[in-house]
């Protein structure tokens, strides 16, 4: 006799039993928190894109009157040890984070997702071959590979970083999408579609893709979050964009040596990074549960 009672499971069962007539068509509500997070992300993105025309100071401008100063009227987040405005550097720094995050995911998903779907649907030799290759790559720590490549592939540029991280993420994306597709590809409705004479392409687009999309999008968002963090780590190792270009990661890196005198240089970029990641993760999770049609909502 199990002491552990599945509370939601039992209640879910009852709800399922009860609503055998009509399943209530109400997706899990997104909630106000969701929109707040979307708003924050949007703010970051707009800031990144329109930084030039926004009333933000020049991030490279060194104001010798305000070295290592805390927040003030002139510099709302304070300045770093070269007198550069932290707020401006955060806004411009978001460009790096967002570009690297989005760009590498475009590559990762652009290559990994179609391969994963195709492999899971087709199975056979194609699947075995590609999966083996991918798993070999997965076995190798991606971070080390990224570090190694970026160390040697100089001069560094944002594009190179995007490309390297992008390709490094392909095996993981492949695995996630392939697993998700496997779960669906054996369902009766896919077999039914085949049996009706649908072409493979039609099945991939109409039956598989809509069902994979929620997981895919959720993973995409979490992937962006991971990559953004990775960029921060790379910056710590001095492998991100070259100074004086600001990025959240290299701002935190720079703050290491002057932590005692200038806590603001570590505080604000960290805060920006944390909030950005929190929002991404939250949105990713909400999207997943909103579109999860198999969960019965309590």
């Amino acid at each position: 006799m199990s002491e552990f009672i599945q509370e939601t499971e039992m209640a879910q069962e009852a709800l399922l039993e009860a609503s055998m007539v009509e399943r209530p068509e109400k997706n899990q509500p997104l909630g106000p928190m969701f929109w707040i997070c979307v708003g924050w992300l949007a703010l970051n993105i707009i800031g990144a894109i329109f930084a030039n025309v926004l009333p933000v100071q020049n991030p490279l401008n060194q104001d010798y009157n305000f070295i290592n100063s805390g927040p003030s009227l002139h510099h709302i987040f304070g300045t770093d040890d070269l007198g550069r405005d932290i707020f401006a550097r955060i806004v411009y720094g978001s460009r790096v984070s967002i570009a690297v995050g989005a760009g590498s995911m475009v590559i990762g998903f652009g290559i990994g997702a179609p391969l994963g779907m195709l492999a899971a649907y087709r199975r056979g030799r194609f699947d075995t071959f590609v999966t083996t290759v991918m798993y070999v790559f997965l076995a190798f720590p991606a971070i080390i590979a990224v570090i190694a490549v970026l160390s040697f592939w100089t001069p560094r540029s944002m594009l190179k970083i995007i490309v390297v991280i992008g390709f490094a993420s392909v095996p993981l994306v492949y695995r996630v999408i392939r697993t998700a597709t496997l779960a669906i590809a054996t369902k009766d409705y896919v077999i039914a579609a085949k049996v009706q004479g649908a072409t493979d392409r039609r099945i991939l687009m109409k039956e598989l893709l809509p069902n994979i999309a929620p997981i895919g999008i959720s993973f995409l968002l979490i992937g962006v979050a991971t990559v953004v963090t990775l960029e921060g780590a790379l910056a710590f190792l001095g492998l991100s964009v070259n100074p004086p270009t600001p990025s959240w990661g290299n701002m935190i890196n720079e703050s290491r040596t002057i932590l005692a005198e200038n806590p603001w240089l570590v505080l604000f970029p960290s805060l920006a990074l944390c909030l950005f990641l929190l929002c991404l993760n939250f949105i990713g999770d909400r999207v997943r549960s909103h579109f999860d049609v198999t969960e019965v909502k309590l």
Partner: protein
Amino acid sequence: MTDTTQPLLKVRDLTVTFGKGHHAVSAVAGISFDIFEGETLGLVGESGCGKSTTGKALMKIVEPSSGTIELEGVDITNQKGRSLRNIRTRMQMIFQDPISSLNPRRRVKDIVAEPLDCWKTVEGDERDVLISDLLNKVGIDPAVYGNRYARQFSGGQCQRISIARSLAMRPKMLICDEMVSALDVSVQAQILNLLEDLKNEYGLTLLFIAHDLAVVKNVSDRVAVMYLGKICEIGPSDVLYEAPAHPYTKFLLGAALEADPDSPVHGDVLEGEPPSPMNPPSGCRFRTRCPFAQERCANEEPLLRDVAPGHQVACHFPLTIQSSAVA
């Protein structure tokens, strides 16, 4: 019911084997039967007997390992690719789990129209009329429910939608793979009646695969009983149920739980478990559980032979002959 024309579906020595070498499992180990146009053949048996695999092999969802399948005189056993797709419209299947046979993210109208859209046979208004017509026929009001998503429906309704979808291309034959097993009794009754009506209206031929003996009898003209990949007995349903010739059929009927407090309790219960399909007994596969088994049963595999017109049995000592010998 004498039908002297060619059968609609002719299956000869069909085998389906999974795996290779030592781990090979022959789920279907050489079966032959015919289905004539307009009839319903019930295929009954317990888990592991190969009835579902047979259905899937006929639909070419799994590949037959050997044997032939002829549909309307055309050998479809080895068809692949484009030619297979063309045949797909003649034979359709309805699955056991009504919920997972429909894409939860698609609307009912689109699901039912899917075959039409694949083949682009009708378009525009004609298409819409056809879809509404189909949905009405299965008891789903297209105006109210047509635009709803498949996930919003109950099991019985999903099964109705599946039926509508399968009829869109007017197939000649419908394979029903445990289609009412997951439904409640009252819903099951509705679906079975619906199936009967549609069969008559569309002139369908059915292969009804199920494990529930009462349901199979209700629906079928003839019934085939399978055990461990082989057909034990095949004959008209009334005859088979009244006077089964194969001992396994008799045990199966004896174990059937009738909703009648006066029904004979505890007929001889079949003891033991079915042997593993990986290592089937030699000769007659049922001999390990058969109280009438003799040496011949271990040495020689019984083949299907007539015990009465239209009634065949694969047994060296069929019950009808035993009892008539005693009498």
